[in-house]
């Protein structure tokens, strides 16, 4: 009844090709942005920012990058943690070495270095496919783990290998409160989401999807596999590198190489699969799921335990978290292998018909 496209006719191509052709969608996105930028900073408290919102926003950005590579271009990559690490450490190196370095320049430096590494480790994808590629990208992951622990230049020769940044500011606007950090990350993520959405709607996105579906056929019809695959790696690593900079600078503040270990890579892959492969919206859904779930379990389990009269020890909660997380992943993949984004689009389809059955 409300979600109808009746009467919404387009009179030029520009209007027809916009990202949100349905007016209701535009209103919904505007409302969402309003809530995100205005309402949430006013209502949320410090813990909510630090533990839920900021990680959610940054992981969504990282998931956008991984989704472009895995979801749109079909190249399974288990090295996303390494690209985040490269972004973070290169940005750190530029940030501390030059006095008064602007944050945006450091951010770009991190992104571009990650892009360079992404292209380098994307070269095997021209020869190696599928699961072999997945394991080959682990080479990038472990090499970077080692390089940042061993090569002193990246950590500005800190004796312990742990680095920290402080004093972030954007054109004079100090990013020192949780609310400001959140707004900064949200702004960047919205920009990246717009960039990603337009890329996948355009010619390059279609090339990626053609490579994903059947790369031999794509080559036959004239799509250059090298260009398409390497551009996917490049764009993806750039975005993931930027997310890594934000994760390190804004969320952690102080970090060591283990912050970007293989668990981070798996986490990003989970986000993308749960959210929905090949879906921009899905990255956000997946990130929300992965960020909120452990915390929710941590709160809910002792409550449930006390209801049935059991005192649950912290170790038991941790184990139960793992078990429930694993079981939920499996259940999810069985119930909806195309992820939360598919559930969302089914919901929208039903909404188009509501209140009519068909």
């Amino acid at each position, binding site marked *: 009844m409300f979600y109808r496209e009746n009467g919404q006719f387009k009179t030029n191509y520009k209007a027809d090709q916009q990202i949100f052709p349905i007016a209701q969608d535009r209103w919904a996105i505007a409302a969402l942005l309003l809530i995100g930028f205005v309402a949430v900073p006013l209502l949320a408290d410090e813990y909510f920012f630090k533990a839920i919102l900021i990680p959610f926003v940054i992981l969504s950005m990282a998931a956008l990058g991984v989704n472009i590579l895995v979801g749109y271009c079909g190249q399974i990559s288990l090295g996303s943690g390494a690209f985040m690490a490269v972004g973070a450490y290169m940005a750190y190196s530029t940030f501390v070495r030059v006095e008064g370095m602007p944050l945006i320049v450091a951010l770009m430096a991190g992104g571009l270095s990650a892009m360079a590494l992404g292209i380098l480790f994307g070269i*095997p994808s021209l020869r190696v496919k599928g*699961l*072999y590629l997945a394991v080959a990208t682990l*080479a990038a992951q472990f*090499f970077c783990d080692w390089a940042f622990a061993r090569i002193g230049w990246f950590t500005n020769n800190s004796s312990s290998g742990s680095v920290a940044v402080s004093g972030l500011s954007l054109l004079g606007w100090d990013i020192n409160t949780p609310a400001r950090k959140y707004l900064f990350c949200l702004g960047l993520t919205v920009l990246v989401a717009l960039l990603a959405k337009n890329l996948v709607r355009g010619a390059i996105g279609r090339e990626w999807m053609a490579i994903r579906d059947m790369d031999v056929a794509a080559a036959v019809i004239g799509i250059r596999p090298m260009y398409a695959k390497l551009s996917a790696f490049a764009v993806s690593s750039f975005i993931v590198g930027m997310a890594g900079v934000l994760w390190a600078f804004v969320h952690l503040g102080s970090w060591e190489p283990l912050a970007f270990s293989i668990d981070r890579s798996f986490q990003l892959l989970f986000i993308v699969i749960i959210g929905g492969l090949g879906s921009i919206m899905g990255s956000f859904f997946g990130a929300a799921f992965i960020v909120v779930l452990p915390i929710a379990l941590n709160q809910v389990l002792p409550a449930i335990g006390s209801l049935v009269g059991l005192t649950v020890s912290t170790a038991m909660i941790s184990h139960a978290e*793992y078990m429930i997380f694993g079981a939920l992943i499996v259940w999810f993949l069985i119930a909806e292998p195309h992820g939360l984004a598919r559930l969302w689009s089914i919901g929208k389809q039903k909404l188009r018909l509501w209140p009519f059955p068909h």
Partner: protein
Amino acid sequence: MAFFLETLFGGLMAGMLYALVALGFVLIFKASGVFNFAQGAMVLFAALAMARFSEWIPQWTGLDNKIIANVLAFIVAGLFMLAFAYLVERWVLRHLVNQEGVTLLMATLGITYFLDGLGQTIFGSAVYRIDIGMPKEPVFVMDTVFEGGLLVSKEDLIAALVAACLVMCLSLFFQKTPTGRALRAVADDHQAAQSIGIPLNRMWVIVWFVAGLTALVAGMIWGSKIGVQFSLTTVALKALPVIILGGLTSVPGAIIGGLIIGVGEKLSEIYLGPMIGGGIELWFAYVLALVFLLFRPQGLFGEKIIDRV
């Protein structure tokens, strides 16, 4: 020269141990097309079961004989792995038939988390001992040829022999028994196997059980070497370069790949490592596998990937 040979032996035997873990991956991939990331968790779970039951059985039954306790613990752990295989097939694989490879991969990752939590819940998270009587002290051979002799670890040697035995048993199983033939048929083509009446579901239970037994043997060997603790799951990460080098579908590939990776790793760590700071074992193994892949994208012995347009 003597030290080089020691390193070589050490590498070969470490490679056999990795191959033990890699075998489980290969078995499951061959028969059900699933890349089982949960193999590491299975190794830990099986080892935990065996370690704890070898403690509990003497406590519950008052048995004094350690060998019998160990054998009984092995059998009980094997039963756990059978139950696990059955449940995985029933609750996970059956519902995910025909899904993409990456979905199945993620499902096995989910199983990994679940198994980690379950294992620590049932059996506890301390370090446990598996005592199968492995000798801990080294032996020095060829002390006439080399001064002081070459150091050979007896434990590693026995482990390598066990691994070789396991591979022989598996080959016999696959070649000579009807079930093995059926498994190979399933590995070749699921639909064709189904059309001649091979029950796919039962085959998957069997293959996951056999992989579980392989994990149990691997867990027993590794557990006796370093103690049964949570970090045992990271051994699986060392087995991955082995399978991609050897080919995801080849059992001899897992062994050869294991030997190559083991030797390459140790030699690089000892000769190359000190020049660049040390600790390069792990990524060197992966880079070595990657280099091989660039020349043979399907691994040394893997099936050639055929793309149909």
